[in-house]
């Protein structure tokens, strides 16, 4: 398989992991095998099991968050790490084995061909045989519909975490990344910053182990929350503070 990574460019794979001790080692091994030029950092989001140890044994770097921040905070730690260590690209790969590391080269190919800032692997861009639970599928399609209208381009799988970002996208997300279920809102943020994204079809596996961050019972709550975030995000004049503006996190009291 052709690898579009040139010698000068470097790529970091960020693997957010929360209690994924059973799978994380296999994911890292697969990454080392299928994408050897990519550095791997596991963000251990306050796991109570051996996730960090397994990741270290498998040869990955590990960022150990002192407590559970949720997927948004964990992935943002990865963006910050990528930015501080001067990586050209950052690819997010889930620790549960859903994403196929051999397809990272497809993401790269698409990024080079399309010249966009973010490439998302989509389960629905073409028939790939993946069937999400009905409760989640409804939500995904609603978000997909909304984002497609807002961005005026086709977005089929806005909840996919299998993404490749370039430096500009890394800089945006290192500064500001949504909190709880960040993928959908992140697409909108990118659009607000006049950066571009495309989707490419990928295949995804069923989850290998662990528990998804989104249980079926939480789906409705998830949907309402993301919808709120989307509409509030739309109303935000400038979603991310420009240099010189008030810091998003300050010690001063608000109201």
């Amino acid at each position, binding site marked *: 398989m052709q690898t579009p990574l040139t010698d000068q460019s470097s790529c970091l794979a960020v693997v957010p992991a929360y209690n994924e001790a059973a799978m994380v080692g296999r994911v890292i091994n697969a990454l080392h095998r299928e994408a050897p030029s990519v550095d791997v950092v596991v*963000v251990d989001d306050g796991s109570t099991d051996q996730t960090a140890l397994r990741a270290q044994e498998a040869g990955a770097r590990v960022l*150990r968050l002192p407590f559970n921040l949720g997927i948004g*905070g964990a992935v943002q*730690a990865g963006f910050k790490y990528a930015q501080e260590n001067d990586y050209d690209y950052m690819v997010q790969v889930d620790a549960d084995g859903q994403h196929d590391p051999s397809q990272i080269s497809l993401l790269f190919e698409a990024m080079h061909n399309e010249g966009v800032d973010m490439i998302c692997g989509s389960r629905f861009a073409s028939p790939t045989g993946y069937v999400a639970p009905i409760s989640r599928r409804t939500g995904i399609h609603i978000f997909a519909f909304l984002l497609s209208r807002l961005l005026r381009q086709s977005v089929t799988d806005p909840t996919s975490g299998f993404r490749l970002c370039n430096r500009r996208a890394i800089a945006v997300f290192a500064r500001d990344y949504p909190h709880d279920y960040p993928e959908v809102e992140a697409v909108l943020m990118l659009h607000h910053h006049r950066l571009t994204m495309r989707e490419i079809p990928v295949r995804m596996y069923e989850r290998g182990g662990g528990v998804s961050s989104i249980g079926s019972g939480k789906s409705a709550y998830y949907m309402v929350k993301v919808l709120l975030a989307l509409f509030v995000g739309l109303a935000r004049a400038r979603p991310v503070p420009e240099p010189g503006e008030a810091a998003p*996190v300050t010690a001063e009291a*608000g*109201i």
Partner: protein
Amino acid sequence: MDNGKLQIVAILGALVLLLVVLEMVRRRRLMERYALLWMLSAVVILGLAVWKDALNVLAKALGVASPPNALFFIAVAFILLLLLHFSAAMSRMADQSKVLAQRQAILEERLRRFEAEHAEAPPARPAGRAAADDEPRTLARSSSR
């Protein structure tokens, strides 16, 4: 006369609240920025207790038939505002702790890598044990002063 007693109790209560808040600020148990809201509410209670007619005037101005209802309305509105203020404060603190956690994790990883790199190299001074023994002692001495 009952009314007079009640007024004294109300005034004392408001004064105690004010003093407790001031004392907490003095002992650094409460930050000034949060104390201001509580002092404001204590002053409002004190004002209502001292100037008995204020509530009637206020009720008339708001168009509320019964003055106690005006009091309840204002109190509930104020408490809601206070709660919103605390939700905002909590959001800010959650944000701050998130930033700190991320920083800490990144620095810890960098330190671990740094230590691993230096563990590979042979120690610069094989006789470093005596020096290492000495150093903490001097540090301890200087810090205990």
